[in-house]
Structure formats: C-alpha cells, structure tokens
C-alpha cells in the first residue's frame, strides 16, 4: 500500500505542468448517477470526462494514474458557505458577508471572494470542488455565486455568477406561533408580530416595485431610468434565477411557499429544521431544499435528540429534492460527515452521496456540467483511500476541471513545519 502511494506521488510529480488529460486506471469509480464501477478506467481529455469503463483504450502518450485500491468520486458541492467572504469571523475587517440595507439584490458575492483566503485550500482538501458563496443580512441579501475551490482569481473560480438570489424570509421569533402550538405567548410577542408584518409589507412593496420596473422597461416608458437593484430582480421575476429562501420551521416554510406562489417566483428553501407537514407541499410544487448541518441540536427542549440526524431521511422519504449546506466557513470541510451522519440514521447511502454532488448541481442549474462522473462533464474529481463520507478517509488527489489541484493547505504546512521541530 505504502509503495503504491509512493508510486502515485511520484507519478503526480511527473504530471505537474502537463495538460488536463489523463487516465486513472484500476480504481473503484462512483459516478453517482449510475452504479459504481470496480477496476475502472476513467479517461479525462482536456478537462472533461471522456470515458468511463472497465475497458478503455488510453490514447498514446497520455499520463496514467494508478488507481488500484483507491476510490474516485465526483467533487463535492457545499450549497451554503461564506467561503472567501469571511476569514476570521470575529474580526469585522475580514468579513464581507453582510452589506447594509434590507434590499440589495444587485450585490454579487462572487466579486468579494478572496481567492487567496486560507479557507479555500482547507475546504478543498476534503474533497469539496464547488461551493455556493452566499451573502447575508437584510431581507434580500444579494446574489450567491457558485464557485470552484480553485482559481487564481474569483473570475476563474466562478461556475455560475447569480446561481441564486438569497433571501431571508421574515419570521416571527420562536415562542410566538413559531414554537409549540402557540401556547404561552412570549413577552414582546406583539413587537415581534409588528416587526414581522412590517417586513412582510416591505417585501410585498419591493416585489411590486420590481414588477412595475419590469413593465416600464418593457414598455420603454418615457423617462425610464435604470435602477441597478430592481434590474437585478428581473431574472428572479422571469424565473431564470431561484430565490434561495432561508426558513427553518413549519410556519415560516408555509409562509415562504405561499408567498412564492403569489409572486410566481422559483424558490429553493434553505436551512429547514422542522418542516412538519410542509414536505408534501414542497414535493408537489417541486421546491428543493438545502439541509443545514445534521450535527445540530434539536430546536426545542422536548424535540427528539436525533431530530437533525433523521431530518434528511424524512425529507428523502417525502420525495423532496435536497442537498446539504454547512452554512459555516469553518465547517465547510465537514460536509461529507454531515451527509454521512444522516446515513447512520436511515438515509440511503446513495442518496447521501447525491445530496453533496448531483443534487446541488441540478438545484443550482449546472447539472449538465458538474456533479457526477459522466461523459462530457467537467472532470471535478476526488481520489480517496476509502469511503468519501467516512471521517477516517483521506483525500489523496483532486482535480478541478481536469487540472490537478493541491491538497496542501495552511494546515498541512504548519503540521509539517512543527512536526519537524527538533
């Protein structure tokens, strides 16, 4: 085994600097969209998957990577991060997550992603090749960008600039209606109700303004002036870009779905925790969800201790399309374990794998280019020494668009430096 790894390492060195074509042979390949292939050869030409099978004839002179004993997966996608937007969460100067104001759909998270952030190689090294980078704050926070975890600039990292419009749906605070049965109204409940209603009204007005703007623009009305914020809402009104709406509990999810129906917009619900009876409706309306960490405490004191562990299976059984998101920079690298924990509590393994690969790719509108190992897709590939979702597994090699990327990071550098301290 060690010899094999040495061999692998050596071949890796020899490959550096060559083009984005190679053949991995003798590995177990998990295409995700089809059954696993053992003893497989995976051919990548010019950064794209060219062929997968047990009998692949390698083009002459192509670099060959020995994959015996190794497993190959599509790169994982974290559907909710602040990667590159925030470096040290407690230091305001290092965070570009939340802009001022309630409505700022014109803001683009992608342009504030620091490609040199120490977080990016750390996230990447655990097999994550793409991340949704979300802005926060206000009601409409701005546009989330789907980014590769590799690139010299944010532009090179970009997969899809406005993959979603992030919206924080106004909610009543827990303990008032949102909690158990509305029994025992919390102090300050009326204030919460007033704030909630005001924010709902603001949102309604804003959508109305966007529609008027759309009409005025279409009619080329006299005196029409470009408004960058309202302009940014047009793809949302045209249902080209989904609104990524955060809502945790049944009441908020119900509200959001009803609102989306009224406004005729496409939505993805992010961060659901207690969907209650809303799942059937989400399924019927084809609304996908982004699941927050399975490693979360139950919302209420008397909720089952395993509430967050069992939620993914509950969502799966309801037939709702879902993907995982970590919602935290620091733990983005742990997204495989977020999916794996759900497997322990009933979620079929294949579904867990899909929820970090093909499902998010489809939800964010790039299912034809990433998310699985299929002919014609970008070669976003992770090579491991075991099960991708298993906490003890090591990522041995990674490719983004067929280009081999570093699995070293600030963490491995410090590790090596201080391990060698005399």
């Amino acid at each position, binding site marked *: 085994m060690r010899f094999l790894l040495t061999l692998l390492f050596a071949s890796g060195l020899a490959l550096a600097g060559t083009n984005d074509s190679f053949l991995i042979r003798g590995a177990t390949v998990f295409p995700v969209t089809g059954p696993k292939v053992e003893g497989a050869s995976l051919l990548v030409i010019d950064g794209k998957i060219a062929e997968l099978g047990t009998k692949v004839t390698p083009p002459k002179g192509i670099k060959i990577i020995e994959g015996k004993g190794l497993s190959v997966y599509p790169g994982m996608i974290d559907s909710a991060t602040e990667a590159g937007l925030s470096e040290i969460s407690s230091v305001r100067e290092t965070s570009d997550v939340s802009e001022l104001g309630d409505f700022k759909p014109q803001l683009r998270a992608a342009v504030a992603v620091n490609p040199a952030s*120490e977080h990016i190689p750390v996230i990447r090294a655990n097999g994550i090749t793409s991340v949704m980078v979300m802005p926060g704050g206000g009601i409409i926070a701005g546009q989330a960008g789907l980014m590769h975890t590799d690139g010299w600039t944010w532009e090179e990292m970009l997969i899809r600039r406005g993959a979603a419009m992030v919206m924080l749906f106004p909610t009543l605070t827990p303990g008032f209606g949102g909690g158990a049965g509305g029994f025992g109204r919390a102090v300050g409940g009326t204030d919460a109700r007033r704030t909630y209603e005001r924010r709902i009204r603001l949102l309604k007005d804003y959508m109305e303004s966007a529609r008027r703007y759309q009409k005025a623009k279409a009619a080329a009305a006299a005196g029409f002036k470009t408004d960058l914020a309202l302009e940014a809402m047009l793809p949302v009104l045209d249902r080209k870009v989904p609104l990524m709406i955060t809502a945790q509990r049944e009441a908020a999810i119900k509200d959001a779905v009803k609102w989306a129906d009224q406004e005729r917009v496409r939505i993805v619900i992010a961060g659901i925790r207690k969907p209650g009876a809303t799942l059937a409706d989400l399924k019927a309306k084809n609304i996908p969800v982004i699941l927050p960490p399975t490693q979360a405490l139950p919302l209420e004191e008397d909720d089952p*201790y395993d509430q967050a562990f069992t939620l993914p299976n509950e969502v799966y059984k309801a037939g709702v399309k879902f993907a995982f998101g970590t919602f935290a920079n620091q733990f983005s690298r742990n997204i495989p374990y977020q999916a794996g924990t759900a497997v322990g509590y009933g979620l079929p393994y294949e579904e867990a794998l899909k929820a970090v690969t093909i499902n998010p790719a489809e939800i964010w509108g790039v299912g034809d280019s990433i998310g699985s190992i299929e002919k014609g897709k970008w070669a976003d590939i992770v090579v491991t020494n075991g099960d991708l979702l298993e906490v003890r597994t090591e990522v041995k090699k990674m490719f983004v668009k067929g280009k081999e990327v570093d699995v070293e990071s600030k963490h491995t550098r410090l590790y090596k430096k201080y391990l060698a*301290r005399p």
Partner: protein
Amino acid sequence: MKSIFLALLAGVLSIASAQTIVIQNATVLTITKGTLKGSVVIKDGKILEVGEKVLVPPGAQVIDAGGQYLMPGIIDAHSHIAADSINEGSMSVSSMVGIEDVLDPEAIAIFRALAGGVTTANILHGSANAIGGKCLVIKTRWGKDTEGIKFEGAKPGIKFALGENPKRQGMATTQGTGRRGAADTSNLRYPGTRMGVEDVIRQAFTEAKQYQATWKDYEARKAKGETVIPPKRDLKLEPLVEILEGKRLVHAHCYRADEILMLLRVADDFGFKIKTLQHVLEGYKVAKEIAAHGAGASTFSDWWAYKVEAYDAIPYNAAVMVKKGVLVSLNSDDAELMRRLNTEAGKTVKYGGLTETEALSLITINPAKQLDIDNRVGSIEVGKDADLVLYDKHPLSTFAKVQKVMIDGTVYFDRDKDVSDRDQKQLRKKQLIEKEKQNQPQQKKGFAGGARRPA
C-alpha cells in the same frame, strides 16, 4: 423470625443478582487491554470480568450485543452544560465561585450528551478571568438530582484562562465613538494584554503563598499549645493554596504558543503543576515544553479561524502532541459537539495518522487521567465503573450511532426505547397542554372573584 430473615436475604439476593449484567458477543474496545470479541460481566455497578468466554452468573441479565461495539463511556474534559451560569466576569480572579453552586441536573443537555455516549464531563467556569471559578466533574446520570449527578470523589479543579477572553474587558474600544482614537476607557478591567494576564496570575499566587504561610504559622503555633487567633479566611485564596498543595487541578484555557509557555513557567516558578491546557490550539508548536512540564492537553479536533488566536489552529494538533509525548484528549466545549466526540476522535486517524486505539484514548482513558479519575473510569477493566457505550458500528465511523449507554451498571439510555416511547410522550404532552388550557381561565376567574368578595 428466621423465615423473615431468609425472605429478606432472598430479597437482597434477588436484587443483587438483578444487578448482574452480561453483555455478550460484542466487539469490546477496552482501550487499555486491546480489543476482543467477547463479553463483559457487570456486578453492582462495576466491571467484574472481561473475556472472550465468560461464565454467565445465574440470574444475570443478558444483553446480546452481536455485531455491536462496546467501548468505555466517553469523557468530555471541557463542557459547560448543566449549569445555570458560567462566567463571573466582574473581576480578574474569581476563584471564590464554583459550578457546584449553580448545577442544574434537569438541563436537557445532560440527556443529549448521554445519548451521544458521554458518561462523564468536567463542567468548567467560563474564560472571562485569568483565574476563574471552580469546576465540577459530573456523570450524566439523567434523572438524578444535584447530588446524584456529581462524580463522587473526583478531585476538585479550577479554570484559568489566557489570551483574548480574559483581556477582552481590558481593551479600550473605539466602536461607537465615531472618532478615530477616541477610545472609550470607562469600565475597563485589568488586564488588557497578555502581559497583564501573566501579572494577574503572579500577583494572585504571590498573595496565596503569603496566605498559606500565615496559616502554616498559625497551625504550627497552635500545635505548640500557644493561644493564637486564627487568620481571617480568604475564599479567593483558599483554592489557590489548594493548587499549591496539589489538592486542586488547574485546567487552563489557552490558544497561543507564547501564552502556553508563559503559564508553564509561572507554574514552575510557584512550584505547582498545570494539570491540563484547554483548547491549546497552538499546543503543537510547544509540544516539547508541554510534555516536559507534564501538563495534559485537551483540544478540539478541527475548529479554527473563529477568532484571531485560533487562526493557526490545525486539525493535526492532537496527533502532533500525541507524537511528542503529551497526554492528549479531545473535548467539546459545546452541548452539540459533545454528542459526537467519537467521530471527532475519528478525525485524528485522518489528520496525523493516529491508530484507532490512540484515537479512542483521546475521549476515554486520556481525559480520565487528566481529571485524575482513571482509577474509576476511562477503560473497560476489571474493577472499574461499568460506564459503557454500545454502538451499532465502529465508534470512529461517521455512520455509527449510540444504541445503549450504561453508567454504574445501570442503563440510562436505550435508543430503541427512546424511539418507541416518543408517540406516548407526544400524547402525554398534548394532554398536559389541554389540561393547562382548561385550568388557566378557571383559575383566573376564581382568583378575581375571590378578591372582590368582602371579608
């Protein structure tokens, strides 16, 4: 009379035999004595026998754990659950306060930790002070009262804290003033720098030494038969004297290599030991010095970058320290993380290549040693407390879940039962809510009516 005695004896015997439990067919991860496929016999809350083949005592309750993994209960050396308050932040030395006085045995976090395989936890004061309050070791005996959850006989401890947290209240802030450099210096508390943190600790121990000398002098003169007035007791200094005399364990919150080294040298100068460095995220940089002092290190698996002093934190920290001879544990400091310390340990297999036994030691025998309770818990050995966790898969696996947790030979958590009881509990909750709804308006009416009635 004789027959009554016999009946009584029989009663006692039947209770005793009911307390004998055999867990069979498990993969037993003893931690200290290897791994075997076999059984564990438990009697009166203690481990009586561990072996591939054991004799099942007559009347013993048998738990078939075929295909499952049995390991010692997880020990979390750093937790803040089950306490009504955590930080007495008004002064830089708060050694007079203690968690024991604010213990809440009904905190749901105890149950959740238990369901995550934790059977023992060190409940610490917060990190707002260079020298903080006294800690308390508990067992997660869910359902017991304040006395019932204490880890009886565990050596007392105390929290120290270095770095950003204790100096926070000493840092002038320019926020909100709107003018550059116009810092708000009201309500500042010394210290405001890492230098000041060292000074606070040195000052406190200088006072404690004098206090100790005063008492020693008094005891000596009293022993000689002199009539002497006892010195005034000082509840702040008493715990520090206990530290100097090795009767109280120091658990010191720290991050950066410089402050870690500083504290070790202060302790060396005053002649006491740091029992554990907590968090110790840069411990890997000074592992040699930590090992030489003999301090333990209790760290996170992979937390980083949540503040400046955590920016050099690496997930290899535990492994590097283990390799350099430090006694290392992994802790949670968090009611959520506390429920999955097993997979946190699993990460050290990946980050730094620890063996499975080394990894599991980080959450069992090592924290037991760090809390000086390894004679009682931390491994599956004859004579130790029967604090055990049964997993459906290898505990270091992402896919593993806790099936049963036993403390002192009593099953405190059983997943199957927890799941099957849920409908009934929901029903009971509904009934109680209905009852309360019906009661409320009636009570109100009765009370108001009563008040209006003339006497």
